[in-house]
């Protein structure tokens, strides 16, 4: 390097400076508040902003509260709790502005606790598509809590819990002490059928290791292989790409394409898919080998909305094939594979 050239690392990493956001979801009574409360008491989590629907809901011990306003409360471990206002965009923007102006703590993580009945998809969509929020935040992880006692029934009776499980990056089973080992095994099996990519752990009284719940999303554009695999959750995928259970409404599968494809052809495929079956395209994530690009393009979508395209600095590891993880409602793998083939973006090749 001569003494006048630009320095290595002279550009900003598109991901590295963003504040991670975790979404804690789960059906009524599944123990979200207990989990959040436990998380906030950990020394590593001393600069978190928690967004809840009501300040009372979080059930913070009054001894922990240092300062409180109508909308926010400062805990004596340094964390901040705030009420979800009209919409999430407004609350997150407001938090960032107040942080920048020095009115609140320098929070370095946001945890959003959704209401039990909430569909997490709109919250995720907000985080991956709102252009202002994308400047400051990144979706790190969707954690779905599953109540061991009531989940087996709820997963049959209601559609919301199924979707909450299907969209999760991490599944946490609560109240497992109230059921037998056999029932627990069955529940884990059931969750694995619905979402084979999401690791499952059991938490008692909200106790769970922090590393399971944080730093799941991509944190920098020169991500290492293990970071990408952790985010994709695809490392344990069936090599043959078979859907795990064919009688399920929710299906999870991986498409692989060995040859690079054009970005136009790829987006055409996604456009057709979202136009025809957007609501059933629960979650898509993956890496795409785009012709002419050095690194893979990161793809992340929830139903009909996708994160703006983002290129990683380089391929993590030797595998340069396009890998797309689909979680769908009643869209079989073959349909999607056929669509990609028909559009002619790629020859399905080894992926078939």
């Amino acid at each position, binding site marked *: 390097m001569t*003494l*006048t*050239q*630009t*320095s*290595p*690392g*002279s*550009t*900003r*990493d598109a991901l*590295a*400076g963003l504040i991670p956001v975790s979404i804690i979801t789960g059906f009524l009574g599944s123990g979200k508040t207990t989990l959040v409360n436990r998380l906030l008491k950990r020394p590593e989590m001393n600069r978190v902003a928690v967004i809840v629907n009501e300040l009372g809901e979080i059930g913070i011990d009054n001894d922990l*509260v*240092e*300062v*409180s*306003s*109508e909308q*926010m409360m*400062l805990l004596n471990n*340094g964390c*901040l709790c705030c009420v979800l206002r009209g919409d999430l965009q407004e609350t997150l923007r407001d938090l960032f502005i*107040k*942080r*920048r*102006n*020095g*009115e*609140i*703590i*320098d929070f370095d993580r946001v945890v959003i606790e959704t209401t039990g009945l909430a569909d997490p998809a709109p919250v995720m969509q907000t985080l991956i598509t709102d252009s202002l929020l994308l*400047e400051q935040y990144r979706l790190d992880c969707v954690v779905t809590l599953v109540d061991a006692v009531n989940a087996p029934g709820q997963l049959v009776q209601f559609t919301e819990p199924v979707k909450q499980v299907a969209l999760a990056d991490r599944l946490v089973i609560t109240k497992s002490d109230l059921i037998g080992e056999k029932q627990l095994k069955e529940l884990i099996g059931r969750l694995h059928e619905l979402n084979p990519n999401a690791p499952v752990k059991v938490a008692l009284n909200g106790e769970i290791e922090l590393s399971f719940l944080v730093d799941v999303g991509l944190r920098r554009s020169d991500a290492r292989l293990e970071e990408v695999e952790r985010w994709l959750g695809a490392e344990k995928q069936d090599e043959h790409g078979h859907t795990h259970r064919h009688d399920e409404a929710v299906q999870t599968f991986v498409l692989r394409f060995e040859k690079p494809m054009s970005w136009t052809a790829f987006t055409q495929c996604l456009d057709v898919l979202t136009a025809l079956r957007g609501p059933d395209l629960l979650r898509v994530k993956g890496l795409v080998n785009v012709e002419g690009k050095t690194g893979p393009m990161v793809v992340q979508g929830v139903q009909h909305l996708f994160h703006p395209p983002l290129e990683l600095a380089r391929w993590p590891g030797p595998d340069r094939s396009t890998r797309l993880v689909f979680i769908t409602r009643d869209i079989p793998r073959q349909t999607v594979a056929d669509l990609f083939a028909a559009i002619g973006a790629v020859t399905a090749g080894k992926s078939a």
Partner: protein
Amino acid sequence: MAVEGSLRPGGGAAQLALNMKLIAHHELAGFGGVGEGINMQKTKDGRRILWMAHESAPKNFTAVDVTDPRNPKMVVQTDLPHNDVRSNSLDVVGDIMAVAYQTKKWGLKPAGMDLFDISKPEQPKLISHFDTSGPHSRGAHCVFFVDGEYVHLTSGSPDFEPTNPKDDQFYRIIDVRNPSKPTEVGRWWYPGTRKGDSAPPPPRHPKFDGGYRPHNTNVYPQKPDRAYIGYIDGGAWILDISDKSKPKPVGHLTYSPPYNGFTHTVLPLIERGYLIISDECVRDNGEDWPKLTWVVDARVESNLVPIATLPLPPADAFIKRGGRYGSHNLHENLPGPCSFRSETLIFGTFFNGGVRAFDLTNPLQPKEAGYFVPAAPKLAPKGSAQINDVWVDENRIVYAVDRFGGGLYTLETSF
């Protein structure tokens, strides 16, 4: 259950940070007021020495060994001969350091520039003094020295009588190829600022008369025929210096009034054809707000077009912290083995707004990448930190200095 208090422990003067982390703080032996000269020397024995010119007397300059940036160690601190002179500015090339001297009143000495041999950082050895004192001169405010051959100096001169006392300094090119005998080889001043000029004296700024003098006079080895000059109330200038004896204006941008003057640094992004131009906030409590940093399209030098300003937090939120709030110095992409150089990441200092970094990938929409605002230093005269200047090394370690007592803050970035 409303309770009195702040949702930020430490209240209004607390530290603020985004994507910048404090890894060391050095108070410079109680003389933590630093001006706007920072440069890093790589010594022959492999040490990395950060040189800093002080804002005001009694100290001249201080060197800190930052080979381990987490453990800075002071190497030397020198004194000025009296309290009516300040050094303020310095630059380092190899083992030679140039230091500016400006007096409080006209006619005083020492006024001008010193060249030091710093091959032994513990014992800087004076090579020569370039005297610019005179009846109408306060000496030199700023040096720009990056090629080992020429110092681009903002200074008065015994033979220069300004039309207005505030316009007493101008652009001087000093040949230092023989460092024992610095010699002027060229000069340029704003037309009308010297007695006897054919042009009339320029109009004074109606609200804040800062004067018509250069501040920074930047010249880069990649483009040795151009000087980029912030001319305080005279705006920004690009001079053709292919003939150093006859600098010729080729570009000029002025935006004050309606803005509040004090154009400070003109940093060219040479490969991309843009200029980053900072103004200096010179009044406390928001009196001269807005003091901005401009992004200017300079692809056609004769038609400089401002296209954006660096995004800053609202004045209301910072003015109340005390002291100045607004733009000042930039990291200047200097050549040299220890300097960070980027055409898209810009670092600037903003007094009580701290040190802030911006992403100019899209020059039409600069984005904030990070910031660090120290908590008010002990006994801070303004009640807040007043971050004055910044140097970024090639590993993107950020060195920011306080104008009064805070000293040196060493920061890591995570963007």
